[in-house]
């Protein structure tokens, strides 16, 4: 007897990870259904929403926040019970949260993936860098990554690292005048400033124009030079995948042999649909994915679903330097200082990354001057003086996985009757020890640039890099998925989310998530 299915594969979530997996599957002739809780919104509309927003620092503001598809800044929707207001900028629309990111596309280092073995803390990845390398290359090609392959990205001033099988798909953007000056002053002090590989194309690529410095990567690139997940949602559709919007998955149904047999989704009108498939890929964001698994009581024999939640929780430094550097020319960020990315110190404290913002700083500067009561000609003079000399350092730390940092379904329900989110998150001692090191660097930066400090006690900040919540490992007793992102409990259920990442390092996890998602598609393609 043959069973008929609605699709070979159902992918839940049309963000960068889900859409890349859907595209790779559809390209091989698989029938794919791609579910998206939110709607499809054209870029021009998001752009107009941004331009007419009174909350320009709020990166969720230009995007829809619907009763059936809430974003994360809705305090009702995401309740915190821990000491930190864990609130990443999650979006719900076709393309997902890469609509507003800075498109940093780093690879992990081989050592990042052996944290426990080398440094005795946290966890090792169950796979190594060499296994992931070809997929990194494919992910970089998919996203159109522009990078400098000649630098030691481990920040130790050594040979080109990590190893690459091929050059970056696109040459790096030219170094900004600001960064040229920064390097001149930081290098003699031993700070290694590294160019940030990024998903902003430097020449026309995959239907995208070259970046020309509109300086609005967050919350929306007006021209689509910067990668966003909707691009691959469209590619997946063109390759034959069926995209269903306003469709919130709320239940994975288990069947014989511990297989997942169906997914149930609900429309805003309250109607329910059941879809069957041979394989299921949940790519529904690092918070929503564990929530769906917990609501469905699947993949949780280890009791680790929703636990080990990590962000690169950070701090910030604002200062006014002694020479005009002029941030705001080019994309919003271009590089950072990586001295503390890897080394024996990781036995004692977290790795540390400092990035210099290149966002036009006028709003922040003007708000500050007005708060001081500065008006008249001094206001115009102050804006120009400070805007030329503004140095905005964003620092991130490596969190370790902890079972008490956790996301669970909340008791509150959304308009569909589906539970909202509850998070419990505390910053660990490993990060607190890293902060001490970062603060010493801050003092040195201030001295190097003879700077007036504007803010050096920011408190902990969200960095929107969600990891660990469906953690990867080789032992089914203490992890949710294996090295292929296949759930230990269900052979035909894969998780395409940065939530699988077991050791967070200090780099933005999206590129790694896309590489793992492409690898999921390869695994499924081989098995169907």
């Amino acid at each position, binding site marked *: 007897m043959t069973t008929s299915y609605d699709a070979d594969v159902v992918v839940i979530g049309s963000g960068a990870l889900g859409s890349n997996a859907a595209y790779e599957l559809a390209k091989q002739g698989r029938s794919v259904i791609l579910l998206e809780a939110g709607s499809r919104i054209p870029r021009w509309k998001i*752009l107009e929403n*941004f*331009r*007419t*927003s*009174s*909350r*320009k*620092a*709020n990166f*969720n*503001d230009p995007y829809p926040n619907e009763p059936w598809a809430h*974003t994360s*800044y*809705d*305090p009702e929707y995401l309740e915190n019970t821990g000491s930190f*207001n864990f609130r990443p900028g999650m979006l719900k629309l076709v393309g997902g949260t890469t609509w507003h990111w800075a498109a940093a596309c780093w690879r992990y280092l081989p050592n990042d993936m052996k944290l426990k073995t080398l440094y005795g803390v946290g966890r090792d990845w169950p796979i190594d860098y060499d296994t992931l390398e070809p997929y990194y290359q494919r992910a970089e090609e998919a996203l159109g990554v522009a990078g400098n392959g000649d630098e030691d990205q481990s920040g130790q001033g050594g040979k080109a690292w990590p190893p690459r099988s091929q050059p970056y798909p696109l040459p790096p*953007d*030219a*170094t*900004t*005048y600001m960064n*040229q000056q920064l390097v001149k002053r930081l290098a003699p002090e031993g700070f290694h400033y590294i160019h940030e590989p990024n998903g902003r194309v*430097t*020449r026309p690529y995959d239907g995208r124009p*070259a*970046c*020309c*410095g*509109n*300086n*609005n990567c967050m919350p*929306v690139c*007006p021209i689509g030079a910067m990668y966003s997940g909707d691009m691959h949602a469209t590619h997946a559709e063109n390759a034959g995948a069926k995209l269903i919007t306003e469709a919130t998955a709320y239940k994975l149904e288990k069947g014989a042999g511990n297989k997942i047999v169906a997914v149930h989704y609900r429309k805003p009108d309250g109607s329910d649909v059941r879809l069957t498939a041979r394989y299921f890929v949940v790519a529904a964001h690092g918070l929503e994915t564990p929530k769906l698994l917990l609501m469905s009581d699947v993949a949780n024999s280890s009791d680790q679903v929703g636990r080990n939640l990590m962000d690169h929780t950070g701090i910030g430094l604002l200062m006014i330097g002694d020479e*005009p550097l*002029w941030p*705001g*020319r*080019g994309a919003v960020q271009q590089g950072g200082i990586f001295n503390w990315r890897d080394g024996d110190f990781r036995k004692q404290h977290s790795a540390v990354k400092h990035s210099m913002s290149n*966002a*036009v700083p*006028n*709003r922040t*500067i*003007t*708000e500050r001057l*007005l708060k001081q*009561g500065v*008006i*008249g*000609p*001094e*206001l*115009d*003079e102050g*804006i*120009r003086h400070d*805007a*030329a000399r503004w140095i905005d350092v964003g620092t991130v730390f490596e969190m370790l996985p902890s079972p008490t940092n956790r996301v669970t379904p909340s008791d509150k329900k959304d308009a569909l009757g589906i539970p909202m989110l509850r998070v419990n998150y505390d910053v660990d001692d490993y990060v607190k020890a890293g902060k001490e090191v970062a603060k010493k660097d801050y003092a040195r930066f201030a001295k190097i640039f003879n700077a007036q400090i504007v803010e050096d006690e920011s408190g902990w900040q*969200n960095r929107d890099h969600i990891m660990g919540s469906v953690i990867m490992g080789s032992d089914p007793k203490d992890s949710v998925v294996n090295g292929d992102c296949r759930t230990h409990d269900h052979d035909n259920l894969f998780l395409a989310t940065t939530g699988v990442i077991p050791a967070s390092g200090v780099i933005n996890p999206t590129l790694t998530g896309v590489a793992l998602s492409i690898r999921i598609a390869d695994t499924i393609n081989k098995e169907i």
Partner: protein
Amino acid sequence: MSNPPVAQAAGGDALPENPARRRVLLSAGLMAAAAALLPWARMAYADAPAQASPADLDAFLGLGERLTGRAHLPPDISARLFAALAQGNRAFGASVTRLVRAMDIAGVDDMRAFKGSAVDRNPELKALAVSIVSGWYLGYTGTPEGLVVKDDTQFITYTGALMFEPTRDVTVIPTYARAGTDHWAVAPASIATD
């Protein structure tokens, strides 16, 4: 590049002669300017925006120009800012008149004379001056709050926000571009004098 259309609240050829009718139309224009943001039907009378007369609006535009040191500011943006600042404060028009008079008396025709003047030293007048300048420079009123979906801010203008003027020759108003790929590698022309 244009701002979202709003009802024209400043004087113009199309406006009728009858001053009473003209006042009604102007109020309607102000309502329309802010209507996108407010469910009027549910508002208490005391919270409804002040009825702005043409004289009020002219005075407010003049005051904005004086406080920001700009010879010409757009009347439509000025009317929108008046509506936002007057919300919930029916005495706002009178406060504007007091500030204008105080500046006249103190001889603050030019903002270079503001610092240390009697107006600068009066906390209430200074706060009002700063709030008007804030609206013009930032392009919004109220206080933005991070990581939430609502706050008390109101949108006034984006490209018209004066905070971008002092750096117009070097950087961009975000979302707009000034030159092609990689132009940022070269030092700004003004670097020697910045």
